[in-house]
């Protein structure tokens, strides 16, 4: 083996090693710390590696599987490196403050960047309306997804549906789905209770189920994972620029593609959660009541005779 061949061979070994460390051997085992200082991740037994990004912040990436070079600790020396492996140097593990792991403000806005665009083809909200409501997600408060399912007994299903849609429009919500007996509406979370009260007034409530799901932890974790993955993607891009063999470049590109797809999936999930937090979902099932059918068989009767004379029969009897 010539010296040149040997150097080339060693160069590829270094590339493989660097890539393996960066991506945690292909696993999705990001380890990240939450605000309380706890650590999340699927691989607890593997060692962790600290990478210092350009901004000085550090993310922890845990290897999910035994690694041939598990004791390797590397950091990117310079963002404007020469492109040679000499720019990588071994460093001692350096614990970083947990605060560095918290989502940056710009990352917190990530999920609010794009609304999901409504939940059905029959949705009537404009993108602007949804964007406005989605932007209203307050990350300083617990993130709750409100959903309600109602069964309403009504005498006029269609007219009642129209009345409910009027209420939904007033609170700047939108129709997500409509059929003969069911409508699904989305309303801004801040207007959820108001809308629910008014919808319940439109008929006799035969059944009611209201839920509030706290997704604060999932949302925060997701934001941190995205941040870490984006930092990793940035490093891979730099690695790609430094690659000087086809094999190394292809290897980095494959990993880059995988990370990018993963980031998009996580961003999609974050947008979905943002949308669900910003807009509460109310599903109303209608049960048509027949003439004279009384849901409330309350024997109580006010002692005012004129109340009993109210109605179309009296008014229209000329």
């Amino acid at each position: 083996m010539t010296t040149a061949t040997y150097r080339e061979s060693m160069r590829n070994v270094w590339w493989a090693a660097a890539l393996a460390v960066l991506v945690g051997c292909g696993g999705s085992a990001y380890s990240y710390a939450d605000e309380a200082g706890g650590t999340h991740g699927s691989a607890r037994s593997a060692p962790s590696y600290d990478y210092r990004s350009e901004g000085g912040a550090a993310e922890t990436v845990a290897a999910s599987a035994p690694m041939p070079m598990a004791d390797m600790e590397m950091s990117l020396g310079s963002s404007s490196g020469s492109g040679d492996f000499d720019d990588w140097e071994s460093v001692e593990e350096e614990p970083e403050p947990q605060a560095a792991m918290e989502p940056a403000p710009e990352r917190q806005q990530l999920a609010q960047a794009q609304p999901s665009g409504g939940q059905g083809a029959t949705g009537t909200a404009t993108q602007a309306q949804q964007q406005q409501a989605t932007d209203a997600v307050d990350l300083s408060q617990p993130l709750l997804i409100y959903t309600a399912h109602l069964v309403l007994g009504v005498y006029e299903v269609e007219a009642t549906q129209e009345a409910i849609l009027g209420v939904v429009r007033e609170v700047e919500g939108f129709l997500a789905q409509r059929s003969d007996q069911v409508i699904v509406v989305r309303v801004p979370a801040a207007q959820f209770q108001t809308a629910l009260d008014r919808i319940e007034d439109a008929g006799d409530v035969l059944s009611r189920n209201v839920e509030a799901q706290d997704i604060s932890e999932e949302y925060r974790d997701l934001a941190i994972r995205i941040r870490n993955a984006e930092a990793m993607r940035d490093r891979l891009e730099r690695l790609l620029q430094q690659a000087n063999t086809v094999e190394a470049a292809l290897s980095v590109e494959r990993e880059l593609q995988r990370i990018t797809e993963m980031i998009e999936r996580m961003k999609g999930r974050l947008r979905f959660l943002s949308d669900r937090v910003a807009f509460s979902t109310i599903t109303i099932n209608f049960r048509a009541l027949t003439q004279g059918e009384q849901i409330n068989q309350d024997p109580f009767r006010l002692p005012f005779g004129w109340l009993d004379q109210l109605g179309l029969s009296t008014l229209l009897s000329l």
Partner: protein
Amino acid sequence: MTMLRSIFAALLLLSGCGGATSDLTVPDDFVVLDEEWEDYQMRATNAHGAVLGVREVDNDVEGSLSFWVDAVKNRLRNRGGYALLEESDVSAASGHDGHQLRFGHDQNGSSYQYWVTLFVTPDTVYVVEAGGRTEVFEEAQPRVEQAIASLRLD
């Protein structure tokens, strides 16, 4: 608009209803029915079957507007088979605040609209009713709204 003023003071005095009076300008295409009604101080209709009616009821129990609104709402929804489609606050031309309940109702296979608008004074509950088959009433709706807004209470 032909201004047909329905003055009920004399009728009220005759019927001993405590002297409450109301005055409502009915729409052009409505006629005031010149009869003495047992339950109504005035009724008017158009040629297609949209009807307006005004009741004046002693408020002996001094019920508030919200009390009577709830009473009417419960009566019609729970016992009358009416669906409350919409409700809103309204004002009379005389400045009195009121509340309007808009109901839907199916009758003999047809869809009907039925509005009840309430104004309450310490002595009297003014009940303005309006209704008719949906297609007829919707055509008359803007004029009915004007008529209700023209109500003057003394």
